[in-house]
């Protein structure tokens, strides 16, 4: 069950949706649509008024510009991934922590979050109150608790409803019939808010957190995950911009078949993404030809610099830093069409 909450409805849970599942069948890039819409997601974010041209600007404080994030022009959005280590009530109860997390989230238009661990399901609604306490209008999508043991995690997408809306079409888990992945990725579609007659940049995010002890089993099928979702998204919604993002527990040199997909690129290749600055764990991965909305700007948000904290203090927030990438709000004509991509994936391999 995918639960979402409307920022405009007093943070009460308003709907549950599991629109589609993409089937991951071993190393074969087979794909099946296994379920039709169970419930239509509520679109709290779509109720937000569309601002006039030139005002598609998020609540990101201008002071942050000096911290390596690009200036807000209204022409781009920032998509990020952030593993908030063991994120539950205990972390939220730390003095100043909700405010800091809120400020981090508000730097971005969409944030894919990993490692929410909270049986009470209170942590994210509570965080949303802090995020929106400045007048911002963020909303979220959350996965069911996932994992093999009783200690489970949830994926979350938090997004700024002033700049993007989540699709009414699909939010779903990749269905892992052969049980190859510890936590099935959470997929969600988004589209930017743009002035009339401007083509909206629509994109699909695939949020993943691999098991560090099973990276050698999970990474070799990550190319299949991405290809399967891309194929499904194109067939279902003509969507060709699919971004895999999250905590892969692997550096690019370990990507294997994923890193060999034609046109594939990852935004972080050198800069460590963990707080101790020793490893690249987190990344944002996509096809550079299809997703030419990417502006070329990406990076790791230095939380120590942002808040003036020492490494040990940043570790109280997380052992990971947010990784971000910038995209145009306008859909760009790509060098290759989604249809070309879908066909190159081999129609005989799909059903």
């Amino acid at each position, binding site marked *: 069950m995918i639960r979402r909450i409307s920022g405009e409805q007093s943070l009460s849970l308003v709907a549950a949706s599991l629109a589609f599942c993409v089937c991951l069948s071993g190393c074969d890039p087979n794909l099946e649509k296994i379920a039709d819409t169970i419930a239509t997601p509520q679109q709290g974010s779509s109720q937000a008024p569309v601002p006039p041209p030139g005002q598609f600007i998020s609540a990101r404080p201008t002071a942050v510009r000096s911290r390596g994030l690009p200036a807000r022009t209204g022409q781009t959005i920032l998509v990020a991934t952030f593993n908030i*280590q*063991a994120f*539950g*009530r*205990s972390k939220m109860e730390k003095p100043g922590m909700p405010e800091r997390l809120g400020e981090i989230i508000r730097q971005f238009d969409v944030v894919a979050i990993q490692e929410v*661990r*909270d*049986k009470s399901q209170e942590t994210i609604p509570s965080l949303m109150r802090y995020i929106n306490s400045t007048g911002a209008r963020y909303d979220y999508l959350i996965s069911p608790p996932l994992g*093999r*043991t*009783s*200690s489970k995690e949830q994926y979350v997408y938090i997004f700024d409803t002033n700049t993007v809306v989540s699709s009414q079409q699909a939010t779903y888990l990749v269905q892992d019939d*052969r*049980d*190859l992945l510890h936590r099935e990725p959470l997929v969600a579609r988004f589209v930017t808010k743009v002035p009339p007659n401007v083509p909206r940049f629509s994109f699909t995010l695939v949020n993943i957190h691999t098991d*560090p*002890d*099973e990276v050698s089993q999970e990474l070799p099928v990550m190319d299949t995950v991405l290809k399967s979702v891309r194929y499904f998204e194109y067939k279902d919604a003509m969507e060709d911009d699919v971004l895999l993002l999250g905590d892969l527990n692997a550096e690019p040199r370990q990507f294997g078949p994923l890193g060999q997909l034609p046109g594939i690129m990852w935004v972080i290749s050198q800069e460590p993404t963990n*707080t101790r600055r020793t490893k690249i764990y987190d990344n944002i991965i996509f096809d550079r030809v299809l997703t030419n909305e990417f502006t070329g700007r990406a990076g790791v948000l230095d939380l120590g610099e942002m808040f003036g904290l020492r490494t040990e203090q940043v*570790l*109280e927030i997380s*052992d990971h830093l947010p990784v971000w990438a910038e995209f145009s709000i306008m859909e760009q004509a790509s060098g290759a069409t989604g249809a070309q991509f879908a066909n190159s994936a081999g129609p005989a391999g799909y059903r």
Partner: protein
Amino acid sequence: MVEPSQLEQYANDPELARSNIACLFESLVADESRQNYAVEALENCGAPEISQIPVLLHALSSGESLAVYWASTLLGRLLSDGPVETAGLAQVELEQALCESLKRSLDLSAHERILWAFGKASSLQPTTREVLEQLRTNASPRMERLIETALHIPVS
């Protein structure tokens, strides 16, 4: 009981975590905050010290699913470093302990993690191989894959 803040430090300091393995296993059955940080610490701590093997064997015999899961995980990491032949403990004893736990454990995640741990060993005792061969006959696809890895059979 250790405070969550202390466990959080263990989660961010693998060396500290490795020297407090017993405390981490105790915290697996505590409240959610402690359990979350204990899991995080066990996930991040890497291969344990040889001297911690008795703690892991105790956890394996506890029958507590999460403890068995993480004890198997840490033993698997240890086995992946090469044969364990120190501290007066031969690898055969580790394998026996894992096999015993395999027979006792009804929890699927713990069961699978034990099989995963066997897959980390470069070679297994004949008795262990026999146990795995027996399990293979009625195994789920995932368990079959884990067993095949442990037995060095090309994964089907």
